């Protein structure tokens, strides 16, 4: 491995994930170094680890022959990997749901119906008013808009009466 060569570790990180697609980011490793393991230099391994932590790929050698590589460890890498896996799973499930129910309004209706099922009935105008007040809306305006929201939701569910698929 040539010194100072750039190595690109291919991985899917959260910073590269966009809606319904994931691109690839590059982790740049600054350089590669050889360390000869020798009884005369007991600190070599510690230095090798330090360099790996700083981003270098370190090749350990004995009698000039490679015996191991110390690869860089990025503290955030494990978290990035898990985040990437989480998002991949979510986007895959989302794509499945979209294929199952392509119409956006129907998906909205399905979601509202599932909320109602989970909460023992649809939200009332009072529920909506309570939420609207938490947004800073004035009492009178919140109450009027809450009634409109409740009516719109009822109309939506009437337009899409099909029972939802149970995905819980």
């Amino acid at each position, binding site marked *: 491995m040539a010194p100072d060569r750039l190595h690109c570790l291919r991985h899917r990180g*959260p*910073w*590269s*994930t*966009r*809606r319904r697609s994931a691109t690839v*980011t590059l982790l740049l490793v600054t350089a590669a170094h050889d360390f000869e393991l020798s009884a005369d230099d007991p600190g070599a391994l510690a230095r090798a680890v330090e360099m790996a932590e700083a981003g270098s790929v370190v090749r350990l050698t004995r009698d000039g022959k490679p015996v191991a590589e110390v690869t860089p460890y990025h503290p955030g890498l494990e978290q990035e990997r*898990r*985040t990437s896996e*989480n*998002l991949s*799973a*979510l*986007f895959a*499930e*989302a*794509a*499945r*749901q*979209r294929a199952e129910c392509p119409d*956006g*309004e129907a*998906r*909205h209706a*399905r*979601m*509202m119906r*599932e*909320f*109602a099922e*989970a*909460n023992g009935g*649809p*939200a009332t105008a009072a*529920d*909506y008013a*309570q*939420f*609207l007040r*938490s*947004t*800073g809306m004035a009492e009178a305006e919140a109450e009027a*808009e809450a009634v*409109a*929201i*409740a009516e*719109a*939701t009822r109309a*939506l569910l009437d337009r899409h009466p099909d029972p939802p698929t149970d*995905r*819980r």
Partner: protein
Amino acid sequence: MTDPLGGWVLDVAALVAFADRARYAEAVLATAAQRGLTLLVPSPALSQAYDARPHHIGGPRLATLLEHPLALVSSPSDVPLELLRKLAEIAGGDQVAAHVAYLADRRGWSVLTDRGELLRRIRPGLVIIPA
């Protein structure tokens, strides 16, 4: 009331409410639909919400949100890296909070969150809606 250019940024707590199928999330969705608001979902916050509940329960519910016509997922790659670092430093290293605060500040949108104090420390003046 319709504000087609407006929206809310959903922090982790608000997304967890969707994973729980809570009444709060129902109100968020119905109100957003009525007012034509975009629900901006920061992808790192989404991942944290996904981890906060059993995947087989919360996952499909969060995926349903992602497929909702009002939802839009935002990636931190849209934020200049150096700025993200600086904001995260203010947040004690919390890149998720930094990303959420940046998005809300940049768009001038409110944040649905349970950590308004932290987000306001990152970006003073943010409008917080308690989640």
